[in-house]
């Protein structure tokens, strides 16, 4: 039983990371009806930026929370810039050209970032510097919570609360919700649609950058292709929750992380990658709009 709770805890930490990436997919889908296949690569760039910043400031030598915050902010800044650039260069020229053309440029950008990543960062895996010395934070009964898990979960919760605040309580959030409901009508009401879309990419990329750093903390091997499969699964998580729905992406990410961890813990890790898709299809067939989606 205690092993079950330990796995559940691992699953929640892992699912939180999926959820952060899934949020980027779902928000972009909300405003553009575009599956942004390049989003997984933004997450990779986040992890890579963290790696280089941590090395440049030699933060790996004496682990501290302040160092982690610096790395997080640096990665978020870099990815915000990257996200806005991708949108400006690859998607904005195709606004109004139907929905398939931007899908293909998204695939192109994803390929570009993977290959540019291999050229710039090198194709071999790197080891993310230990920004926190791993130790046990506290115990609940037999359940040990490590400081890394605690940091991951806290960061995820803080970021999600921040996002909720932005989406529900600010002018930008209201504009974003308006564009996602009906972009032409929002434009008629004076909402600067292009700026809102750009802002949505920035917001999504910031969350993906944070996910990249958190993965580096808990699973330190990073490489230029690391965004491929987690990116796809985060997208699956977004669909599970109902694509376009922000609470849906959070729930879908958590669900996927927990189920994957339990499957690799109790069944077999070879089926771990398939389970995401099996759940996906089961949910699509019985509830085609996802858990929280509207038709």
């Amino acid at each position, binding site marked *: 039983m205690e092993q079950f709770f330990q796995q559940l805890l691992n699953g929640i930490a892992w699912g939180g990371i999926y959820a952060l990436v899934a949020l980027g997919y779902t928000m972009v889908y909300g405003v553009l009806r575009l599956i942004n296949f390049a989003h997984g690569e933004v997450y990779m760039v986040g992890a890579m930026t963290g790696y280089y910043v941590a090395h440049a400031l030699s933060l790996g030598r004496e682990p501290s929370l302040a160092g982690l915050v610096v790395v997080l902010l640096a990665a978020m800044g870099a990815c915000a810039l990257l996200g806005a650039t991708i949108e400006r260069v690859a998607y904005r020229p195709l606004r109004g050209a139907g929905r398939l053309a931007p899908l293909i440029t998204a695939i192109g950008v994803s390929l570009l970032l993977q290959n540019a990543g291999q050229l710039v960062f090198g194709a071999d895996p790197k080891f993310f510097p230990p920004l926190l010395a791993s130790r046990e934070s506290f115990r609940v009964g037999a359940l040990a919570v490590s400081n890394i898990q605690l940091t991951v979960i806290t960061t995820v919760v803080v970021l999600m609360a921040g996002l909720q605040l932005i989406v529900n309580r600010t002018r930008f959030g209201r504009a974003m919700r308006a564009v996602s409901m009906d972009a032409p009508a929002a434009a008629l009401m004076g909402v600067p649609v292009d700026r809102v879309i750009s802002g949505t990419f920035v917001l999504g990329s910031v969350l993906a950058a944070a996910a990249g750093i958190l993965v580096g903390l808990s699973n330190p091997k990073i490489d230029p292709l690391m965004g491929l499969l987690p990116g796809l699964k985060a997208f699956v998580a977004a669909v599970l929750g109902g694509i376009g729905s922000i609470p849906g992406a959070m729930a879908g990410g958590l669900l996927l992380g927990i189920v994957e961890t339990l499957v690799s813990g109790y069944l077999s890790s070879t089926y771990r990658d*398939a389970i995401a898709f099996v759940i996906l299809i089961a949910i699509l067939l019985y509830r085609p709009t996802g858990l929280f989606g509207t038709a």
Partner: protein
Amino acid sequence: MRRAAFLAIAAVALLALAELALPQVLNRYYATIGVRILVAVLAATSLQLVNGFTGQFSIGHAGFMAVGAYASAALSVYLGAGWLEALQSVLPQPLARLAYFPLPLLAGGLAASLAGLVVGVPSLRLRGDYLAIATLGFGEIIRIAILNVDAVGGARGFALSAPAGVDLRYEGLGMIGAVVVLSLLVMARLVYAPGGLAFRAVREDEIAAEAMGIPTTRVKVEAFVVASFFAGVAGALFAHAEGYVHTNSFTFVRSFELVAFVVLGGLGSFTGAAIAAAGLTAAPELLRGLGEWRMILYSVLIIATMILRPQGLLGSRELSLARLRRRPGTAAAGAG
């Protein structure tokens, strides 16, 4: 009709010539690229049937290639090697091989079309993005399932090994070309025959098509099954040309690539998809001189083409000899 027959005979003669002459003049590197181009052309045009002509969006096509590749490879390794040996004892070797190789191709196609039926019936109830995502999921599930079957090598991959004197590999560009051309003709007949209007009707307006008495679900499943069949044939060609298959050749990345060929070529154009597939399969090889930069240039090429021609290279038109003759200047660029 007589003209068509003449053209068919001419094509067969040309391909027979290619089968005999190409190995003499082409080195193996070019021959391998040739095979890959033909496989990509067949896979992309079959996907065009679903995505371009029927208006359903599938992004898991590589899964059906995998089924075709593995089913045909398993047939060849476990049964076919014996049959081929028996054939070779009564026929001269080249003839025996020519008689045997259509068999695994057909088997691969049938296995893939069965998978297409199993996947298509439940998924085609879904629409738009949800259908796309379900096909993506099925594609990955198929791949991971194959990865866990030990009889076909599992994670080690599956080599088409055979007893001495029997070679299960087939790289003859002539026959592979003939298979691809024939498949293309079949698909084009299917779509451009009067009955084929049903596909395009479903694409243009499903509700209107339904109202006109078109069994839309059946038409969609039909397109899906036929497309899976030819994807399976493409997979089988690939498996037998390479002599080794691994599930890594059929990941969702491969599926995305096929979708890119279809959209870049122009939705609803077989020739467009074929040109895009051939061009983009050849491009990384042609760019090899650039070293590490080639894949970067390749991805930039995809992005730039899409931005410059959002409707795809040929739009929804076909490139045909008649069109070339009518408008000598403009048709070649697809702007006719």
